[in-house]
């Protein structure tokens, strides 16, 4: 990972941590578990080329990742959502791969911040 700030809004994350206090760990764990299961589902629907399912899952991921300050991840989810919405799924497979990589990065930073 090149630079943390390319992946996460560090200031906002500090605020979030202040707000969540003890719950921050729960939040991080919840986010990681929840997102992991969404990514697993995405694997399936991308393979099946189900545009509507792609749209819904990535929409949800876009929202939750933005809430944990993962700006880059959220942006990539938005791109994937747009593909689903426009039913232009060529390149979805490749985007999903990069998205998973980004998720690994974010998860690592979040865990380190506990």
């Amino acid at each position, binding site marked *: 990972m090149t630079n943390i700030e390319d992946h996460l809004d560090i200031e906002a994350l500090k605020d979030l941590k202040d*707000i969540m206090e003890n719950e921050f760990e729960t*939040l991080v764990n919840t986010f990681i578990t929840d997102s992991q299961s969404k990514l697993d589902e995405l694997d399936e629907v991308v393979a099946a080329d189900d545009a509507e399912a792609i749209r819904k899952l990535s929409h*949800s991921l876009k929202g939750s990742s933005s809430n*944990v300050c993962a700006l880059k991840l959220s942006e990539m989810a938005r791109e994937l959502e747009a593909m689903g919405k426009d039913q232009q799924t060529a390149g979805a497979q490749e985007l999903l791969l990069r998205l998973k990589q980004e998720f690994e990065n974010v998860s690592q930073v979040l865990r380190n911040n506990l």
Partner: protein
Amino acid sequence: MNNGMDIIESEDTQDEVLRILIADDNDSDRLILQTIVRKEGHVVYTARDGQEAIDTFREKSPDLVLLDALMPNVDGFEAARTIKQLAGDNLVPIIFLTSLRDATSLADCLAAGGLDFLSKPYNRIILQAKIKAFASMRRLHETVQQQRDEISLHNDRLIHEQEVAKQVFDNIAHPGCIDAPNIKYLLSPMAVFNGDLVLASRKPSGGMYVFLGDFTGHGLPAAIGAMPVSEIFYGMALKGFSLQDILREINKKLKRILPVGVFCCACMIDLSFRKGSAEIWVGGLPDVLIYRTKKHELENLRSTHLPLGVVDNDRFDTESQIVQLTKGDKILLWSDGIIEATNDEDEMFGEDRVREVILATQDPDHIFDNIEKAVEIHTGRDEQDDDYTMVEATMVNESELGDYFGERGVSHFAGGPKDWSMTYELRPQTLKEFNPLPLITHLLMEVPGLRPHSGKIYTMLSELYSNALEHGVLDLHSDLKASADGFARYYMERTQKLESLNEGYVKFYIDHKPVTDGGVLTIMVEDTGKGFDYLAKEKANHRTEGYSGRGIPLINTMCRSVKYLGKGNQVEVIFDWHVDV
């Protein structure tokens, strides 16, 4: 009604605890949101999909709903619609949680009943602001609803109160003789709440009083004054008080009880059928019209006084206008409702139109109806929902009015004094300032069953009293009254002598004994005058004729006997009466 104030005050307090439902299928998002909201001090309920949101809403009825748009099972849009339905009249603000940006999706949120959006990532400050804004909106809505309910409650109560008041009013202001054949009137059933009032009463001495009043204002404030007016009018008319006395009493009462700015425009008429004249007092009402049947002409009688209840009695002027009338002549009076009735162009009906209608009417019997019709045509309304009040009083022969029974309804025979006597001596100072007849009449009317005879009794008392005072104590000669010139001199002398009076009295001795179905009333009047040679007169004139000006022939037709006693300074009248079945 301080509820409104309390609510507005509490708006400033930061720590109002709201119960907020958060529905989001995304666990981490929901966790963040509920943590923020809880930290603001609110109570949070959570739901993971639309169906759970609906169920929780039903169970907890929260104050505010934060609803994710895209959720499994039942989505946010549908949940919003159901929640709105469940909330019914209550305002439950729904804020959509969404990262949707396109206009169609946002429009869908609004269509489903959402009032605002909160987008991800959540911003604590924005969320705080929105919760506050919607909480106060909800309170406002509650206040409005509460006030709406209160208004409708007040309205119901007001209508109920008006009905009760109307009933009380109708009991006090019984129609008197308003249905007499020489009276026509127009008065809406709830007119008393427009401040309009029509009263009519036969007088014990013959004749009739007619009163039309128009109070300022509407509703209860306007109606409240009508009650004492009616009570005074009927009470005093029955006891034989004069038009001036009645007006003064009403004015005094209204001045005392009504707030400044509330008064009663009025017209009062004393119709004398025997004399063929009317005494009219107008204060603040539109011109009274006199219709001359024979000449088919109209005369105006302008208001020359302030309304009743404006000035104190020492400045109150009861000077009336006397109009000579022949049979069939009509007096028309109205409140300003008729004159000021407007058409669609806001043009008033006006007095000119009233005159036109009257003069265009050939049969005088149709004048009243034609005016009413013309006003209806002018305003384009056939329903009588306005405060048009109008009275027409026609000069007739007294005999056309039928018998006078003083008061409507059945007399009460139970209770009350039946067997009694009294002596009432009036000395100079009293003779100067006081008319004892209403008081004595009032006393006699307490005798059960006697009231229908009040007309005759009043006539007898007043003849006997004026004889005793004028010919007895004051020693005036009725011969004087024979000429118009002498008439004036008579009254001048009467005034002068009365003013300088310092000795003498008029004494009433009244005795009532009950008999089966009636009673015997003996009235003896004694004065300190010289008396007269009644024996000679009796012989010469066979009982009744020749007591010039003493009204004795009239009394004689009314009672069993009239007897002079002593040196002619005492007179005894025996009146037998029976209950008319």
